[in-house]
């Protein structure tokens, strides 16, 4: 269980980026963060990673993330940022980097075994000696997931990870996340822009406004009213063959004025 309580952070006291934010994400579930740009999603991730000091508490599996040593935190939480860079490394080396918290100075046989297994699971084994800068956007995204998995953390956080992917790769990416979460019993918190994909992957939804969670719950919480409130747009959710589809309308009157 990930429990975030009363998280507050701001560069300016009068305008906090995170404003007493609280949420609970059960173990083995996928939590989806929704909200406009500037709602505080990336700052929340920075707090989770210990990059930004916030007031409040972040507890995962009974342990306070803020009080953990850097190495222990790296074994607990893995992160895929918005913009993914790997440098001029091979796929194998990119994934091996994630084992740093486990091996310290030089990779051992256990690290190589984990990396090989993750590459096999992700269908990247044949590309292991390829320079990652030569891969397509979709393949690079797979490397990002493989890297997060090789870290062997129980909590994975993804900050809008499909920003520069085409629709098919975006769909593939979210399907992969769902698969690995189920297979490895991982707890995942992911910030998503595309509501359509968001509705297809999440177990719990958190809709953020001005640094706090305004609405939370299962997929039912994402509806025309909450979308209008959070994003300021008209939208309709239609279920076709059991799958939720989001139909967008115009900008709502309140937003327009």
């Amino acid at each position, binding site marked *: 269980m990930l429990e975030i309580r009363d998280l507050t952070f701001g560069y300016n006291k009068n305008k906090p980026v995170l404003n007493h934010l609280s949420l609970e994400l059960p173990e083995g579930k996928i939590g989806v963060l929704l909200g406009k740009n500037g709602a505080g999603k990336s700052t929340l991730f920075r707090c989770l990673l210990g990059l930004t000091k916030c007031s409040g508490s972040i507890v995962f599996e009974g342990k306070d993330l803020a009080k953990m040593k850097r190495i222990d935190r790296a074994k607990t939480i893995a992160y895929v940022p918005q913009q*993914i*860079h790997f440098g*001029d490394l091979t796929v194998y080396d990119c994934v091996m980097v994630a084992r*740093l918290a486990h091996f310290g*100075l030089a990779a051992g046989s256990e690290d190589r075994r984990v990396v090989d297994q993750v590459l096999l699971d992700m269908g990247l084994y044949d590309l292991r000696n390829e320079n990652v800068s*030569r891969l397509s956007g979709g393949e690079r995204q797979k490397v990002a997931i493989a890297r997060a998995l090789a*870290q062997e953390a129980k909590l994975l956080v993804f900050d809008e990870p499909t920003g520069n992917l085409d629709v098919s790769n975006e769909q593939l990416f979210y399907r992969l996340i769902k698969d690995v979460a189920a297979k490895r019993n991982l707890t995942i918190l992911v910030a998503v822009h595309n509501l359509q994909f968001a509705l297809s992957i999440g177990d719990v939804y958190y809709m953020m406004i001005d640094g706090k969670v305004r609405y939370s719950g299962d997929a039912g919480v994402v509806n025309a009213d909450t979308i209008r409130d959070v994003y300021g747009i008209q939208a309709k959710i239609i279920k076709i063959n059991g799958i939720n589809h989001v139909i967008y309308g115009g900008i709502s009157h309140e937003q327009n004025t």
Partner: protein
Amino acid sequence: MTRTTNKRINWILPAVLAVSVVLAFFISLFVGSSKMSLADSIAALAHRSTPAYERIIWNIRLPRVLAALIAGAGLAVAGLIMQTCLGNVMASPSTLGVSNAAVFGANLSLIALSGGFLTLGTNATDAVRQADPFAVSAIAFIFAIASVLLVLALCRLRSFSPNTVILAGVAIGAIWTAATTILQYHATDVGLSAAVIWSFGDLGRATYTQDYIMLAVVGACSIVFFALSWRFNALLGGDEAAHAVGVNVRLLRLVGLLLSSLITAVCVSFLGIIGFVGIICPHIVKRIVGSNHCISIPSTLLLGCLLLLVTDTVSRSVGGGTALPVGAITSLLGAPFFLAMLFTAKERG
């Protein structure tokens, strides 16, 4: 050129470079203006020749060749680590203004403090040679290190953000250059000539003692860099990603910048400015084997050795009895090769 790298190809480069360095070491040792034959050189190396030849090999050529090996390796690896720490391909061993500060220190010693040599004659080259090398080098080194610490102390206020480090280095470097100009403006002709000649990179100044000091610094720093290889690899993915896998990014950047600057300060203080090695070597290595520091650090060390050995040998061969400044030869030979590599390589896919 393929950008696909695999383990086998990765280890071929350091192996080829290691063999080339050994060959270049002996060629460099046996080439010079004294017209000694190869047999004489080998005999002198084995202490089975005339005292004059033995002095040439053991007292003149060997300290110089060792300096080329050590300084080449040091400057090259310092450039690689600077580029990684600052995420900037233009970063070089002198990015923190180390060389400018060292030049100012040397100028101060040679011009204002006389460096203990001004009474020795009017020939500027002799003046530099006859100056107490440790007096000039020590003052150059003190200024170089003081400058580095000043830049890093300032950058601490901004969490060592790469752009801040680079700009602070440029600004502090500009201050040293301005101060050097003012010093030189007030210098005597001999003092000015000595100061200018000092700033040319010259491996001929190296003594065994200086070689040992450089070896200790370059060796120790290189071992630390190699031990931190995977952390530097993590840094290639950006600060947040490195932090997420457990790297203390601020400390890593501080250690990388400090040790790279320490290497540069020692080499520049003893030998003068030898440019371009620190930029060209890391680029060539990264183009061939990629950026994995486990491979690129040893490869860059070896390529630095090779480049400086070859350019020093050339500078001693074409100077007509006088060795040309090795720093100029490094750039003169290295830059066209580097440009050819840059513009003939396939575009990244």
